[in-house]
Each structure stands twice: as structure tokens, then as C-alpha cells.
């Protein structure tokens, strides 16, 4: 963990001293992590890529103001969650619209079993039904594997709040999954 943060710091220093290579190293290191967080909210390949690009543009333009009070990944994930929040706020109903279309999983190949597709679809629909602040907490926990303390820094709330949001998100997910399973029978 410490090594990882030291590595980030060296990339940031490199970038601030005028070398773009430092920023490029950060992009290479974190692009897939950011993509997976964004995708778990958006569930659309092209839109997710656009949002990831937006996130890294914000990083590029505000890295000078990064004070290092929190770890770089925490700061990056905060930008990611806020960018996704703004996207969804501007395009209300985007997710529900996406999930009713047949092209939700354009990347799914013929090898992928029908069961897996159905499972993905169920998770997507269930997640879409969970309000943003609860979804953000559970996504950061279950997709990115952050600790409660790290999530509380990203979302700027207390650890108790994180715990309660994750608990409630899982209760909602369970209810939604049961509902969706009931519908499909």
C-alpha cells in the first residue's frame, strides 16, 4: 500500500515538474479501476469511456491543486463518483432507459452463457433501483474493494454512515433481486 502511494507521489511530482509522462503513468495505472467503477453505475460501454476520459481530464487540470491530504486514489475516486453523479443528474432516466434496451451488453460474445447474461442483467436492474448515495458506497466496497475508512474519505462522510449505507444498499439489492427473479418466473 505504502509503495503504491509512493509510486503515485513520484508520478505526481514528475507531472508537476513538467513531464507529461507522470500523468500518463497515472492514467495507465488507474484507467481500468476508474472504468469499472463508472461502468457499475452507467452500464454502457461508450458512455463509460467518455466519463472516464472526463475524469482524467479533471485530474490533468487540477492535479496542481492536489494537496496530498488524502491518498491519490481516494482523490481520484472522489472525482469519479462526482463526475458520474453529475452525468446521471444531467441525464435523469438514462440508466432505466439503457436497461430496457436490448443492446445493454454489446460486449457479450456468443461464448457467454445465457445464465451469465441474465445474472448481469438482474444485477444491473437491481443496482439501478438503489439510490445513488447507497449505490456509491456498495460499489466502492464490492467493486473496488475499498475499506470503510477509505470509502468515508471518498464520500466525505463518517464511517458509521458508510456502514449504514452499505447495509441498506444490500437490503435494497436483495429486495430488488428477489422482485426481479419473481417477475422472470
Amino acid at each position, binding site marked *: 500500500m505504502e509503495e503504491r502511494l509512493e509510486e503515485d507521489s513520484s508520478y505526481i511530482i514528475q507531472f508537476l515538474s513538467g513531464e507529461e509522462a507522470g500523468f500518463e503513468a497515472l492514467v495507465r495505472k488507474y484507467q481500468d479501476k476508474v*472504468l469499472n467503477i463508472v461502468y457499475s453505475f452507467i452500464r454502457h460501454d461508450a458512455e463509460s469511456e467518455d466519463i472516464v476520459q472526463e475524469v*482524467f481530464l479533471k485530474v490533468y487540470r*487540477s492535479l496542481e491543486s492536489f494537496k496530498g491530504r488524502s491518498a491519490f486514489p481516494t482523490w481520484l475516486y472522489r472525482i469519479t463518483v*462526482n463526475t458520474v453523479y*453529475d452525468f446521471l443528474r444531467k441525464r435523469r432516466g438514462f440508466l432505466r432507459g439503457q436497461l430496457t434496451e436490448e443492446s445493454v451488453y454489446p460486449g457479450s460474445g456468443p461464448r457467454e452463457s445465457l445464465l451469465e447474461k441474465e445474472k448481469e442483467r438482474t444485477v444491473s436492474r437491481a443496482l439501478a433501483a438503489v439510490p445513488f448515495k447507497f449505490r456509491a458506497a456498495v460499489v466502492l466496497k464490492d467493486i473496488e474493494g475499498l475499506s470503510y475508512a477509505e470509502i468515508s474519505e471518498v464520500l466525505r462522510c463518517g464511517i458509521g454512515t458508510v456502514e449504514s449505507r452499505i447495509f441498506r444498499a444490500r437490503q435494497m439489492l436483495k429486495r430488488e433481486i428477489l422482485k426481479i427473479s419473481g417477475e422472470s418466473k
Partner: protein
Amino acid sequence: MKECSRVKRLLSRYADGESGDAEAFRLRRHLDICPSCREELAGLVKIKETISCGEKKTLPADYLLCRLRDRIARTGGRKREWCWSGAGDFSLRFIPVPVTAIALSFLLLVASFGRSPDTYSLEDYVLSGSRTNTAAVLVLMLGQEG
């Protein structure tokens, strides 16, 4: 039963490995004897796995960097974007509130300086310690020049 409802609230934290040693020990002891809470925990673990085992996305090497280089070239280099500790647009929405408050305070301050002290009330006169007599008070009450 009361114990179960208390335990069920702690199971999510336990499933995430965030319980302290003492709490984890107590929970394990309860789980050993309670099938209902065991079932609840299994359900939580299942949901956790379902979410975390979803399809992992990856971007082709340098695909994003190419897009970023292109975008940065089009929109200008290291033009600094105002960002409140990475809060993005979320915090920008709150800027008008302090800005309006500061502007209003400034206007009030200017207005209070601009007011000329041409009115001299009866109270001010009496409190100033000047000698008072009926004539002076009457003059002030009627607003006439002394």
C-alpha cells in the same frame, strides 16, 4: 429474537471483514447456534459476490491516452480548472451562496457609511450631557433649527 435483530445489523460489516476481533468472536458464537442469522449472512455474501464478480472491463493499452492527448491538444494544455479538492461541479453549485452573502454585506457596509449623521435625536441630545431646558427640548421635538 432481540439478539438476532441486533446481529443482523452487524452482519454486513462482518461480511466485509470490518468487525473488530471481539465483535467478530461474539458474532461467530451467535452464528454457530442460529440458523436464521447464518442464512442471512449467506444471502449477504451471495449479493456481495454477485456484484463483485461482474464482468471486469479493461481499456486497450494507450486507447484512453490517445483520446486524452487529442482532447488536451484541442482544449489547451494545462489550463487550470477550478476544482475544490476534486469535488467537481458538485461544490460549484454552492458558490453563489457565499458570494451573494459577501456582496450583500459589502453593500450594507457601504450604505451605512453613506448615511450622513444629519439627524440628531432627542435621545442623543439628552444623552450627550448637554444642558437641557424646555426650550431646547421643544426645538428638537419640533425639528426646528436651534
